[in-house]
């Protein structure tokens, strides 16, 4: 039983940052932006979270700093890809590389450490015990007591499905992706919609980053996003942006991520177990395309 709870908990922990970043990515996906900058936004978010939490002595201000950091990244993306019409893919690559360099540099410059910075002064995001549910014996242990950001991620998923499919903003958002010229000629500038989608994406990625450095652990390590932004991109593309599909893929990835932690104790080399989530991603890509081919035939 404990193994089951441990695995579920590890799955949720692994899934949360991916889910948040992917929910952000789904907004830009629907807006018709080939946005690969989630990785960079998340990394800058993680760094800024530690920065804010450490110097301002508050996890909440840390989270706000994370969002602000990701927003600055989004601002650069907007300036280049939306305003100056540079290539979205190249802009994204540049931003992701920039994020690694910047955070590594600032880590050494501000905290004078190499590799990772951890300190008792970093305030972590608290865990939340859900009222009512917490009291129920089995369910309480399964659903309650996670980090605050986990519940924020769940809320973000539900909210994004509502916004994208039910609201005026959603209709225009999807129109921007389907046919921007049509949206423009309908009197709504597609570039404004794209800017808003990037802002939403940055907020989500900032939260994901804050979860990495203030929720998951309480430290910042160089390149600590470790490809989660890319996995979230894969999740978005795999399910064509559907928020519920993204939730499923994220949990799946979280499960394999959790499995990695579990297998670390066994005799299999850790370098090998660390590959599992990524092999699983490739596997799901394969299964997905096979299924799609069969459906078309």
């Amino acid at each position: 039983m404990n193994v089951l709870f441990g695995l579920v908990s590890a799955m949720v922990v692994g899934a949360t940052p991916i889910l948040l970043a992917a929910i952000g990515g789904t907004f830009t996906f629907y807006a018709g932006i080939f946005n690969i900058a989630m990785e960079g936004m998340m990394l800058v978010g993680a760094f800024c979270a530690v920065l804010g939490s450490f110097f301002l002595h508050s996890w909440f201000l840390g989270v706000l700093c994370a969002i602000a950091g990701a927003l600055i990244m989004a601002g650069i993306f907007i300036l280049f890809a939306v305003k100056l019409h540079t290539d979205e893919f190249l802009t994204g690559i540049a931003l992701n590389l920039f994020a690694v360099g910047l955070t590594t540099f600032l880590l050494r410059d501000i905290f004078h450490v190499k590799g990772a910075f951890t300190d008792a002064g970093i305030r972590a995001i608290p865990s939340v015990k859900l009222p009512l549910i917490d009291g129920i014996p089995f369910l309480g242990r399964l659903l309650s007591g996670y980090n605050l950001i986990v519940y924020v991620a769940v809320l973000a998923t539900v909210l994004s499905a509502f916004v994208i499919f039910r609201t005026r903003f959603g209709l225009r958002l999807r129109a921007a992706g389907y046919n921007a010229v049509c949206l423009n000629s309908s009197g709504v500038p597609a570039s404004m919609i794209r800017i808003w989608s990037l802002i939403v994406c940055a907020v989500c990625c900032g939260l994901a980053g804050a979860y990495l450095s203030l929720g998951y652990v309480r430290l910042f390590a160089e390149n600590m996003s470790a490809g989660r932004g890319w996995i979230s991109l894969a999740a978005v593309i795999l399910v064509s942006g559907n928020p519920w599909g993204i939730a499923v893929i994220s949990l799946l990835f979280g499960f394999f991520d959790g499995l990695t932690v579990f297998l670390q104790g066994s005799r299999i080399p850790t370098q090998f177990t660390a590959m599992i989530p990524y092999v699983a991603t490739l596997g799901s890509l394969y299964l997905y395309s096979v299924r799609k081919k069969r459906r078309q035939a």
Partner: protein
Amino acid sequence: MARDVLIDLQHITKVFPPDTVALADVSVSFESGEIHALVGENGAGKSTLMKVFYGLERRDAGDIFFRGAKVEFRTPREAIAAGIGMVHQEILLIPEYTVWQNIVLGAEPVSAFGTIDVHRAREAVRQKIEEFQFNLDPDTLVGDISVAARQKVEILKLLYRNVSVLVLDEPTAVLTPQEIPQLFTELARLRDKGHTIIFISHRLDEVLTLSDRVTVMRRGKIVGTSAASKLTKEDLARQMVGREVLFTSRRQPQEPGEIVFRAQGLNCSDTEHRARLHDANVEVRAGEIVGVAGVEGNGQFELVNAIMGLVPMTSGTLEVKGKDITHADILTRRTLIAFVPQDRGKMGASLAASILEDAIMTHHILDPRFRTWKGLGLNYRHAAEFVDQIRDQFAVNMGHLSDPFHSLSGGNQQKVILGRELLLETPFVLMDQPTRGLDVGSIEYVHQLLLALRSKKRAVLLISADLDELFMVADRIVVMCQGDVVADLATDATNGEEVGYYMLGGKKDAAHAETDS
């Protein structure tokens, strides 16, 4: 009937840098409640004039008056707010959205939290559909409806925004001949409800059928405005082109020679395994033009693709000049068949490539004179000479050889393709809708070329949706209906009514009644 002047364009001048004068001091007025056609050849400035009016293009001089007041629309949005809407040539809708979603996009009724008030939106759209009797279901996906229906959605989208003036840029260009009368009925109904319609076109019959008044433009200038009832097709063509245009057949009697092309028992299926061509037999003799008539989508597409080897045939044989090409590769076929495809921009040429590159396609493989360095290099000198030859022989109006192909007008693009294909000197020529989208002058040119081929004893198979065209140039007309060749008629012994009867599926048993004539 005295009408008020609603829109008055005065002394509009537009120069495209560096020195292309698109509009030279153009003045024209449109009255309220009329259908006013704006006609002219491609490049005469019709669309540019309307884009200037609509706020899509800046102008260099001139004034615009609307309802008596001087106006200035900087964006289409401002024009729509003033009650003027334009339907562009290419349809701008979202196939993934339903009809009502497309219509309300940008002007959605909302309730709490910014949610779309679906009920109110659909009701408003349904009301508009009923008011104008447009026969649309608001809940179908736009991707699932015909091009004609999409055009209606575009018009409704503007009517939903309460425009009183509709500008339509070549609305019939994307429609099949069967869909056009319905559009005209709907436009006439709109006019009767008080809307003003400005209709850009270069198809003379349509203009005369639909419009109240006609303004002719030529090379950026107004030739004149007159009541449509006082004009004939010949008048219009003369005003548009600036000279007499021949509409009657000049086909000289000529005895056809031996059989050059023979297709026997062609069967063909589409990707969903539906049979598209059943036992089709077609023969073309030397010095003969055989026309293929039929409502679009009745197997013509498959016939063309089967002949060119672009789709596999289930059974049947193909023969050109006694040579069996049933299983031949495309390059072998190209040595025997000149092919002018329907879609200039996709199959006929690469729009982004240079004029030279498009002009020498196929020739550069088949003709060793185009190669140097033992086939590794391209002989540019010979290629340039070849393009000059096409230009001189086919009267192409073009810039530099290295200019992109899309810099040519539609008529000139077609001339380059025709030149390239006809210089292959093949015994058999296959032309699929060679005059589609061309202006009157270019159409006349293509017809002359077809007749010239005929007198040179080449065999021509001409697929056309334009029956007048077939009657003008073809010796025989083969009619296709649902993948069957349902009739093979000598042009001189039949009439449009009979062909139309076969096209719509009458008398199926009478197939292959005459094979020779």
